């Protein structure tokens, strides 16, 4: 038992030590003044700025920082909801039908390299300045990896699984729903992981570009407006932490309860 605990403690220490070291070095560098304080504020200043924002309250009494975080996370959640429902459906259709795949593949190939943020100005024209634009851009960015990975997953299902289902009396639609979808789960989860990353980046980016009132991206831009680099650094830290947290809470947990429990693993690429 104690070996188990030792292992856990070491794993945590693995990343704690380097991060703390980084913070310490950072603090030293900024204090020494080698770098212009305008460019590099110290971690303490950044954290201080975060606390400020956390304590600042709107008229309704909510912490400003919290609202920014919730706004971004909320946008991401809605964007992912949209992307998953459309993306997985399209992916299944593409995986199941060669015709659909051959028709959609060129379209997706052409659209995929366009970064989500490039769509922002158009969406701003169509949807205005607020959340709809952010969600739309995030959903679009998240859609592609989901569609492609789902399609790949469905196509690469061991054909013997399909045969077995057929021999047990399952019709085409049943096979699709009860065998193809779970069978493609590892790939779908890979797609989800990518979608998460792309979606988050796009949400933050679009918040910075559009004049949204809330969101971590907007918060960072404010730091620039008021020439407060501490705000920017604080914002960056929060962006990174929130993303890591979300990934761990959602994607990893999903992975554990499905793909890992079933002993299925998707081919791992970068």
């Amino acid at each position: 038992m104690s070996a188990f605990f030792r292992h856990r403690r070491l794993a945590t220490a693995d990343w704690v030590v380097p991060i703390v070291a980084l913070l310490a070095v950072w603090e030293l560098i900024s204090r020494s003044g080698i770098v212009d304080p305008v460019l590099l504020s110290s971690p303490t200043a950044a954290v201080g700025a975060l606390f400020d924002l956390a304590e600042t309250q709107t008229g309704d009494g909510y912490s400003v920082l919290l609202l920014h975080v919730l706004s971004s996370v909320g946008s991401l959640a809605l964007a992912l909801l949209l992307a998953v429902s459309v993306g997985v459906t399209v992916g299944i259709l593409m995986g199941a039908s060669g015709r659909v795949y051959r028709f959609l593949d060129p379209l997706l190939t052409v659209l995929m390299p366009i970064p989500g943020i490039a769509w922002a100005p158009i969406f701003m024209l169509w949807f205005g300045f607020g959340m709809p634009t952010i969600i739309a851009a995030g959903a679009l960015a998240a859609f592609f990896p989901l569609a492609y990975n789902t399609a790949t997953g469905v196509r690469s299902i061991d054909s013997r699984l399909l045969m077995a289902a057929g021999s047990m009396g399952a019709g085409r639609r049943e096979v699709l729903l009860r065998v193809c979808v779970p069978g493609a789960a590892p790939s779908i989860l890979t797609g989800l992981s990518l979608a998460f990353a792309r979606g988050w980046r796009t949400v933050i980016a679009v918040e910075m570009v559009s004049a949204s009132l809330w969101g971590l991206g907007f918060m960072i831009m404010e730091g620039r407006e008021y020439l407060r680099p501490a705000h920017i650094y604080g914002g960056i830290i929060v962006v990174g932490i929130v993303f890591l947290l979300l990934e761990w809470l959602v994607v990893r947990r999903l992975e554990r309860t499905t793909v890992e429990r079933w002993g299925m693993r998707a081919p791992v690429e970068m």
Partner: protein
Amino acid sequence: MGSGHEDMIDAKGAAAAIEIARVRQEFCRDGLPVVALDSLDLSIRHNEFTVVVGPSGCGKTTLLYLMAGFEKPTSGRVLVHGREVEGPGRDRGIVFQDLALFPWRTVLGNIAFGLETARMKREDALALAREYVHLVGLEGFEKAYPNTLSGGMKQRVALARTLACEPDVLLMDEPFGALDVQTRRLMQEELVRIWETRRKTVVFVTHSVSEAVYLADTVYVLTARPGTVKGVVHVDLPRPREAPDPMVMAKRGEVLSLLESEVRKTHLMQTRPLDDAWR
């Protein structure tokens, strides 16, 4: 001339459950035509345990897939219970060598799959599935996922799953090929035990002569590619059939002599390993 009823009973007893009539199976591989089976005639008797042996790549798996309905013959007919095979279906259950268990379903879930497809009520399906769990001796493992089971246990699940659909015909494609020798022996015994409890028509494909003689009522020996029937050996010995018994050894000898020259022929052919090619 007896009454029509008698005729039918007679017919069922003596007629074939599966009839393969002058079947030829061709397909394209890397642009070249390959003839897997040619002029194949065979008759599988009702409720009999039939084993098909042959050298690697002789088309045994193709034959099974034709019976299962995954493929249609290039020419000739495949009849099951007098009717041509249109596609896969519950009446012909199949157990693959690599099992094809659904990794996302528990043991019980896998076995119940076919029952759910038949639109049973959930409680009934699960209850029936449990019976089959018991039949194959896996009590206690209902909630386990396939990736946690040993090879022999996985085989039992695959068997139970197919049996649960109550097929008329059971097709088995070298199901024990991936098991170690001891587990294989155990599974052969299990299979015979289960079969004697619930008689069905079984078509079992294997490489192994001793396995064939242990299990079969009738053994068909196929030639090297293109596969056709080289010979038939009837094994009317009581079960279980243990090795030291001279009658068993004699039967093995019979099958082996038919098989040997075909195996040599296969080795001489310039072919790549074909185990998975014959589909």
